[in-house]
């Protein structure tokens, strides 16, 4: 919804919330349903109302439970009937500097500061650990903004008893907990307050009268940031950017001005601005965001522009380059198809409002940020939170290389007339084993972002994956595929629960980058081998249809399972007798 896109108008969101909510819920979009408990150290209902809007806009419909005013710690540590019955998917601890104030060191106190920090950390850790233990859910915790006054003036930031120093220390300690615990994320209130401006952020009247931790108008941006975390956790991040070239990646029009005429580099203010934007995109690609080009240009001009000596991005940095005179909506749809991802995983970046309007109207689910002047491109993309990185795995850093290797594979395929011979030429090897601690973040990430080759589309938190891995009645497998063009990383995940001599396959997924390689057969072979070893005689498979997973509707049929039942909404159940099973994988050498 336009009103909720950066830069949104907080006053409008607050005063017309009811209308916006009405319009959002009437748009007929299918939304996932989640439950979020808000444990607040201040009044949180304004926050929740804004949070609700941003989440609805991301396709997430939430039920909320708010703790009573200032009961957050008791509810977290001791639980409450309401909270236990609620069974939240996420618990969000919404604290502010007010909730840390009682731990502040006193002026003149000797050696007290470290003790205060320890006490404060122990207080919070107790809440986090108790929640992890009891709710097994994702935790979001605010870090802490700077306070509205400084007793020691500037000395506050370096005196061991200074309050601003203390808050900095606590933010570091919170960060360390996040680094060492999965499914624990920090909403960076410190950054948001700074971006908003502390002077405007702190509203003491709102605290005295309503126990609001910050100015009313600051809540929408806090809620937007928290919503970025939530949609990322539930696999709704964007994955790729489709970029225009002329006046987007460089100043001027390469077809008219020639390569030497475009603005990029350090020569002028304008060229430096485009250079920094290219640098930003290059760094973004290192976090796993995939870059593509959608430009109206002759291909050679586009490539020449990208090879400008002062440029930062090179043709190699893009997975797909579409530079032609076809309409951009068609080019983007083709790019998405070639990369095997949905168009809704794309952000379209173009300085031209006409192109933006066309793409926004005709490409399903794509995000099209409103760009104004080039010097604001970075801020607009950054604040929109398209690529909120709740998990960063080694796989993300190498993603661009992997997709490029895929392009090489596609090229090689054209050299063969027989598909089997092509597969043999890839010399594929797979590692298929029970979950292993080093792959747990990647496995969790896959369960949350795979949509197409995913039989049940069950999402898991890192803690749940750890539990599956530790449970002796759960069979787990990850599959890693390597060929002559490189390592694809972990691309397949299976989770099956044993009961008696049957095992229920509650999760079966595979990354679309390894489609039609026999990898699913290799996974089944290994799963069956593990089952037989553990005296399991039948496998039960489930297919739950979603808008995106039609490609695996008949997977179990293809595997040789027999359909046992089908309900009105198309959910199917399948069974396979393992006796007499014959191996199905023909092309992959498996290490297990």
């Amino acid at each position, binding site marked *: 919804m336009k009103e909720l896109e950066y830069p949104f108008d907080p006053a409008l969101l*607050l*005063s*017309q*919330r009811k*209308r916006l909510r009405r319009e959002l819920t009437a748009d007929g979009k299918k939304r996932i349903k989640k439950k979020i408990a808000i444990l607040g150290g201040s009044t949180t209902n304004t926050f929740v*109302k804004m949070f609700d809007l941003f989440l609805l806009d991301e396709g997430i419909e939430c039920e909320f439970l708010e703790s009573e005013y200032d009961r957050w710690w008791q509810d977290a540590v001791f639980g409450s009937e309401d909270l236990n019955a609620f069974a939240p998917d996420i618990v969000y601890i919404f604290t502010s500097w007010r909730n840390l104030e009682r731990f502040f060191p006193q002026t003149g106190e000797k050696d007290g500061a470290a003790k205060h920090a320890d006490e404060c950390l122990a207080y919070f850790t107790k809440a986090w650990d108790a929640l992890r233990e009891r709710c097994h859910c994702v935790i979001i915790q605010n870090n802490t903004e700077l306070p509205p006054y400084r007793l020691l003036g500037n000395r506050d930031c370096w005196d061991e008893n200074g309050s601003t120093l203390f808050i900095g220390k606590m933010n570091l300690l919170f960060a360390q907990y996040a680094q060492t615990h999965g499914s624990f994320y920090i909403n960076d209130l410190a950054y948001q307050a700074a971006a908003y401006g502390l002077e405007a952020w702190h509203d003491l*009247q709102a605290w005295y009268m*309503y126990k609001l931790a910050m100015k009313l108008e600051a809540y929408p941006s806090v809620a937007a940031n928290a919503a970025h975390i939530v949609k990322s956790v539930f696999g709704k991040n964007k994955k790729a950017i489709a970029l225009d070239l002329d006046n987007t990646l460089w100043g001027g029009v390469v077809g008219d001005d020639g390569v030497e005429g475009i603005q990029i580099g350090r020569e002028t203010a304008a060229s430096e601005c485009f250079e920094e934007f290219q640098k930003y995109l290059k760094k973004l690609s290192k976090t796993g965001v995939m870059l593509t080009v959608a430009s109206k240009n002759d291909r050679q001009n586009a490539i020449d522009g990208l090879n400008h000596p002062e440029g930062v991005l090179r043709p190699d940095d893009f997975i797909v380059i579409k530079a032609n005179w076809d309409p951009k909506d068609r080019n983007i749809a083709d790019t998405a198809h070639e990369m095997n991802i949905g168009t809704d995983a794309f952000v379209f970046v173009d300085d031209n409002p006409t192109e933006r309007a066309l793409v926004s109207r005709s490409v399903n689910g794509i995000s099209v940020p409103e760009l104004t002047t080039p010097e604001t491109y970075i801020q607009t993309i950054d604040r929109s939170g398209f690529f909120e990185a709740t998990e960063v795995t080694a796989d993300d850093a190498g993603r661009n290389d992997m997709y490029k290797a895929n392009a090489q594979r596609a090229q090689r395929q054209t050299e063969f007339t027989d598909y089997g011979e092509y597969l043999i030429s890839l010399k594929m090897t797979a590692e298929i084993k029970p979950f292993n601690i080093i792959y747990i973040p990647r496995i969790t990430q896959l369960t949350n972002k795979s949509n197409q080759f995913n039989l049940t589309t069950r999402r898991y938190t890192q803690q749940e994956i750890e539990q599956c891995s530790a449970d002796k009645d759960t069979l787990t497998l990850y599959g890693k595929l390597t060929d002559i063009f490189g390592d694809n990383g972990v691309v397949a995940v299976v989770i099956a629960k044993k009961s008696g001599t049957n095992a229920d396959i509650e999760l079966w997924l595979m990354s679309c980058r390894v489609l039609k390689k026999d990898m699913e057969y290799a996974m089944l072979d290994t799963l069956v081998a593990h089952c037989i070893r553990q005296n399991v005689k039948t496998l039960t498979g489930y297919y739950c249809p979603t808008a995106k997973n039609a490609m695996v509707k008949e997977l179990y049929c293809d595997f040789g399972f027999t359909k046992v039942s089908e309900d009105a909404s198309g959910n199917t159940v399948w069974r396979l007798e393992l006796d007499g099973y014959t191996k199905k994988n023909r092309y992959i050498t498996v290490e297990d």
Partner: protein
Amino acid sequence: MTENEIIPSLTKVFRNVFDDDTIVITRRTTADDIDDWDSLEHINLIAAVERRYRIRFTMKEVSSMKNVGEMIDIIAARAK
């Protein structure tokens, strides 16, 4: 500003906040007259009025306001 100038614009603020185009306000209107006027919406309403007229109510004013009439008087005295 005069009361006659204020009432139409203030009505619009009320209709936005409560998402109800049938709301009609008078000097005697109080929270009891509007279904959704709870403590949460009260915070929102006060903030929306402050933004509309570019004024800031003091804590004392907010706590002692008894009906829409008193709100109008403060706006009339302070808004330019």
